């Protein structure tokens, strides 16, 4: 209980600090791109963390993130973009519409035990195709003509477009992370991890598997859709091909797997690393090499750090934090590039740290053996 209170206090402090960033940016005349970079990172963190609530915790591999995202995008595009609703009135419905679609899917697939494993994954992929076709057919949604979000006004209290996007994505990201943490720490989380390890055994032990999986899928769809609702503003012109493409689910999976799916922080770390690398590749004009690099990185890390980066670096947190700070400081002194580049160098430092094999690290640092009191290892170790 004490650790939970401490964690929630940490979330609150982090939220307040991040909330102050737009004011700081304005006062210190930061390049506008910093806010854009941050709120895009918030977008990816939210998407991957919400995906992880279902797939990481319960082991049900989902390609449905594109569907929840798309439902959210089109809900605000239709209500705020076409029907003239106020954006903030339409936004919650983006989450709830995705939630309803998710629960309807869950009612079918979780009732039928034959729809497990690969079939579940394919079913979630098919949902995105079906939703895309529906959007394309019905003119009230899209009808193949796209939907404009460019003239949707934002409430004045949120500020100009960029700070407003920052604040909205920040709130949704924090809600997602707190939810991911609370599930992780709760009976629900334990139950989901038991389902991941062996669903039949979990059921035998009294875990209400159907209810737990529905809860995880609902949370996944709700936050994915809610963030999609905000993201419609950033896209500006919403088209079926773009929104329901494989890009969102693919990146979300990469980010979560890279960061580690067995801890709520894994997707956060994975999202930051992959998004920053992709962003800097794009910035440097090497956008076509993104997939080559990310793919190679994933292969390397899956082989070398199977548990994901987060759990690996958590074991070495003092050295990791020091290295991170050191690289940031060194790049501030010796490198005049933007803060985003400095952030990338520091993240690459973390990656290198994670790539050092356990045995080599133990030799290097003479790491002490874990004590019996260091629990949770059973939840956080890699599947055999």
């Amino acid at each position, binding site marked *: 209980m004490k650790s939970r209170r401490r964690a929630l206090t940490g979330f609150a402090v982090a939220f307040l600090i991040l909330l102050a960033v737009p004011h700081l940016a304005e006062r*210190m*005349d*930061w*390049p*506008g*791109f910093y806010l*854009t970079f941050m709120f*895009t990172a918030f977008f990816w963190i939210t998407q991957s963390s919400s995906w992880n609530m279902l797939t990481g915790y319960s082991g049900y591999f989902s390609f449905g993130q594109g569907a929840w995202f798309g439902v959210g995008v089109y809900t605000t595009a239709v209500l705020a973009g*076409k029907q003239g609703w106020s954006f903030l009135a339409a936004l919650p419905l983006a989450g709830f519409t995705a939630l309803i679609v998710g629960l309807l899917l869950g009612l079918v697939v979780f009732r039928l035990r034959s729809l497990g494993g690969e079939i579940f994954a394919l079913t979630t992929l098919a949902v995105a195709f079906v939703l895309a076709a529906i959007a*394309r057919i019905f*003119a009230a949604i899209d*009808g*193949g*003509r*796209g939907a*404009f*979000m*460019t*003239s949707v006004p934002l409430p004045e209290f949120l500020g100009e*477009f*960029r700070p407003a996007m920052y604040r909205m994505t920040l709130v949704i990201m924090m809600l997602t992370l707190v939810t991911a943490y609370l599930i992780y720490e709760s009976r629900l989380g334990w139950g989901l991890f038991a389902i991941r390890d062996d669903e039949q055994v979990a059921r035998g032990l009294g875990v209400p598997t159907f209810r737990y999986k529905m809860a995880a899928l609902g949370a996944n769809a709700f936050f994915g859709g809610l963030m999609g609702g905000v993201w419609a503003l*950033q*896209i*500006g*012109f*919403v*088209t*079926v*091909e*773009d929104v329901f*493409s494989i890009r969102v689910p693919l990146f979300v999976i990469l980010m979560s797997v890279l960061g580690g799916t067995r801890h709520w922080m894994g997707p956060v770390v994975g999202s930051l690393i992959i998004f920053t690398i992709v962003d800097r590749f*794009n*910035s440097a*004009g090497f*956008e*076509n090499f993104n997939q080559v690099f990310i793919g190679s990185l994933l292969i390397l890390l899956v082989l070398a750090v199977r548990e994901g980066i987060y759990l690996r670096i958590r074991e070495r947190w*003092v*050295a990791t934090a*020091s*290295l991170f*700070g*050191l690289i940031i*400081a*060194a790049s*501030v*002194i010796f*490198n*005049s*590039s*933007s*803060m*985003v580049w400095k952030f990338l160098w520091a993240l690459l430092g973390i990656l290198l740290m994670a790539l050092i094999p356990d045995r080599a690290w133990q030799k*290097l*640092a*003479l*790491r*002490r053996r874990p004590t019996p009191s260091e629990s949770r290892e059973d939840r956080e170790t890699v599947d055999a």
Partner: protein
Amino acid sequence: MRTSHKLVRLLALLFAFALVAAACGDDEGDAPTTTADVPTETSAAPSEDPIVVGGSLALTGFLAPTAAIHKVAGELFVERLNAAGGLLGRDVVWDVRDDESTPDQAAAIYERLITEENVDLVLGPYGTGTITAAMAVAEREGFVFPHHTASLTYAYTYACHFPTWPVGVDTNISNPNIVYDALEASGNPPATIGFVLNEFPGTQLIGYGPPNSDAGGAVSEAKKRGWDVVLEINFPTATSDWAPIASQVAEADPDFLYVGALGVDGPNLLTALDAINYTPKGHFYQWPAPGPLLGAPNADGAMSVTVFESHPPYTDDPEAASIVDEFAAKAAEAGIPYTLFDVQAATSWTAWQVLTAGVAGAGSLDQEEICDWLLNNPVETIIGTIDFDPAQQNYYGDLSVIKQIQDGKWVVVYPPEKALPGATPEL
């Protein structure tokens, strides 16, 4: 244990040292240091730095075959501009990124170009979706936004957007009627017409008009002329299986086939039609990649719209003729199969002309001044004089003419005053 502590101490010591050093050092990289860092307040102060024009093109993805033409046209324009002394006495650099044919990538790129790379000017990407998304960013950032190939004319209300494909604000009415007028002028107008329309926003606008409007488009305008609409197919943008569409076309067998499509849709459909031994009696393609359509089976007689082709009277101007020649050489060098300077290249060229005329006219890189100048002055371009009309959302009438593949070449056939001497529409 001792080694571990040593390692941590060493790292901590280095970290502390670095922080102290950082605190003493200055960070020139983060704060705006030049006028270019504050785009809306840029000035044309004498400088050796080049003027950077940022933008994206669909260098990959389904729009890439046609976007390649825009890339060559832009590069040639910048080369010639710099050879002639640049802009405001400074060289010009074009920073063009790949938006992968997707709107959200385009929006992200323009956001980055303006707020991180601090480019001085921007030029629109290729394609309706990407242009529309990028325009939203330009509007937020107060950047003048010339663009060449956006088709949702009714939707663009930004005061400083400058379209250079002259199709008119009511293009869903004007554009099909230019095609239909050409059919009437052939002396052999169709009695039946069939429509195959891509579910792409721009082609849907041409086909049916704006959403939530009863203005109509190509389909309703055909009916107004008393032509019998015997076929109406809408197909998804990413369609790869053309056989079912081809079968329906062959079965309906219209006198004239109106293909509201873009890129390589046309050649794909013609190939599928050829596979079932069907040749359209008359056919039109809205925005085809010109080269692939020329090489498609039974393409002779295919029509399309244009504003410039590489033949007289367009090349009567020696300047235009030299651009056409240089473009052909550069396009061949870039490996583009169709090397003629046509509507795609011409609208791209015009966008560059509008942008540079605005800067030269304003004598400044201040976005507001450039915008004001363009709104209040006509611009001489390769496709003629353009006079942006705010009352028509900066459009200025539909200047489209009809071209047709005759004897394996695209030639303008309608109206007579713009046609290749002696050429007429053939049905």
